[in-house]
């Protein structure tokens, strides 16, 4: 029996005058990988940020394992968009990964050898061990994303939020990231990913959540990833290439 990890009830949020989330309710079960998809401006990133308390909510309720975010914080890992930090910061890849452990290391202590090993293992998993001591600005976009993923792995959380981890990365990085996500899933972890590429949804994710200010459809990919749901979520924004049930779709806004 799968138990519910996240419970979102009637969540809404706004940016200044514009309401970007309205009446969002859904549940996420343990050990699933869910893609959050929707057109640009659908509130995908805002949804994640609001759930993590990084953006104020208007109404509604979010709970993790039946608790508030604060109580569950230690078991949650967050992978922000790559553009959210300054890659010129004077530090190397291993150090960034070690940062994922800072919460556990505690006050007035420096990372121990064991912590460094843990971070190194996470880098290894992402195939990045040979870059451990490279300055982060000298990594490619895909490598930077792998470092972020490695950091999340080092955090050893139960539940992960990832904001567009596959945006602008090369094919091999995409493959490496997806391998890790599958591994997380098989270890019973839960992952929510903001995703922009509809074509890869059926291949990568077992659950999908269609979002455009509110939830249009949510459930197992096989059931809800249909032409109809895509069309209603994206409105006239979509362009169908190909025919039949092949999901070769592009968002025209890209």
């Amino acid at each position: 029996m799968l138990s519910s990890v996240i419970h979102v009830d009637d969540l809404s949020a706004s940016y200044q005058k514009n309401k970007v989330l309205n009446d969002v309710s859904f549940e996420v079960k343990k050990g699933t990988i869910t893609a959050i998809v929707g057109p640009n401006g659908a509130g995908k990133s805002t949804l994640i940020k609001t759930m993590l308390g990084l953006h104020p909510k208007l109404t509604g309720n979010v709970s993790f394992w039946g608790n508030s975010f604060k109580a569950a914080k230690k078991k949650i890992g967050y992978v922000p968009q790559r553009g959210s930090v300054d890659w010129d910061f004077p530090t190397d890849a291993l150090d960034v990964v070690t940062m994922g452990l800072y919460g556990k290391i505690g006050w007035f202590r420096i990372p121990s050898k064991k912590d460094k090993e843990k971070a190194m293992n996470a880098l290894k998993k992402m195939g990045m061990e040979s870059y451990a001591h490279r300055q982060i600005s000298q990594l490619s976009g895909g490598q930077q994303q792998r470092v972020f993923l490695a950091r999340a792995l080092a955090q050893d959380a139960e539940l992960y939020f990832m904001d567009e981890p596959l945006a602008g990365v090369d094919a091999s990085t995409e493959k490496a990231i997806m391998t890790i996500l599958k591994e997380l899933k098989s270890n019973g972890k839960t992952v929510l990913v903001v995703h922009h590429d509809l074509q890869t949804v059926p291949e990568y994710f077992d659950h999908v959540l269609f979002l455009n200010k509110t939830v249009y459809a949510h459930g197992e990919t096989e059931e809800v990833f249909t032409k109809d749901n895509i069309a209603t979520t994206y409105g006239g924004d979509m362009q169908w290439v190909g025919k039949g049930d092949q999901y070769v779709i592009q968002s025209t806004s890209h």
Partner: protein
Amino acid sequence: MLSNLLHINTLWVMASTMILGIAAGGIGCLAYWKRQNLMSDALSHAALPGVVVAFLIIQEKNLLLLVIGAALSALLGAFFIQWFTSASRITEDTAMGMTLSVFYGVGVMLLAIANRSPGGNQSGLNNFIYGQAAAMVRSDVITMVVLAAIVIFIIFIAFKEWKLFLFDPDFAKGIGLSIRGMNVLYTIVLVTTIVIGIQAVGVILMAAMLIIPAVSARYWTHSFKMMILLSSVIGGLSGAFGTWVSSTGSGLPTGPFIVLTSAAVFTISLFFGKEHGIVIRYIQFKMQQRSSRLDHQQVMTGKGGRSQ
């Protein structure tokens, strides 16, 4: 007080700080949309060495020549900021901080030398640097008014070009507007405003003359044109009112009163402004919250559909 107001010299000074306020308010909007609010602070500090060098050369206080010296030195500062930012990983605020402090330091060095040199009217120089509008004489006022009028003219004559330049430089380029040319013009206008303002409010407070009116105007309008007009009005009124207040007592500095006047306007705008003012935003937030709840109830009771 009334007699004070009518004092002819006070009137002259008020007129000049008012026109300065108008020019600074207008150019402040350009700086705001160019996201260079603190550039004015950096450039006014960077003007110091030029002022002192000009003074060392001519050995007397001639406003026009001091202003030219100030402008050259501020332009050099602007060049350094641009160069450091574009040619290395130094960010703009770091480049500004360095330029303003190092230039100012050089200015202080030169000032120590100037104050040692025999003859010359150093007190005039100090008034210029720390801003004492009351010490301005008629020729100063005329210089200031003429230069400020030119600045105002340039801002208003090229209204739509500024708008394109600030909001959509790529498009502006497409229709044949020279971005490089506009950048040069912008820098010249900015520097001119700053250096003529130093005399009235001093090196340190000059930045406030550009920043505060523009940010205040933002709370009342969405139109670029209205924003510039409003910002100029706020700048002009603050200039005149602040000067008047400082003239009511002896030895009261002008600049700080001008700054506090516009700061008061800003505080009012922040709270009661009709665009994004605190009060209006609070009301909107509450209303949205309520409508959210209502929607929710409707959904629950099945009376209405889900609203977008």
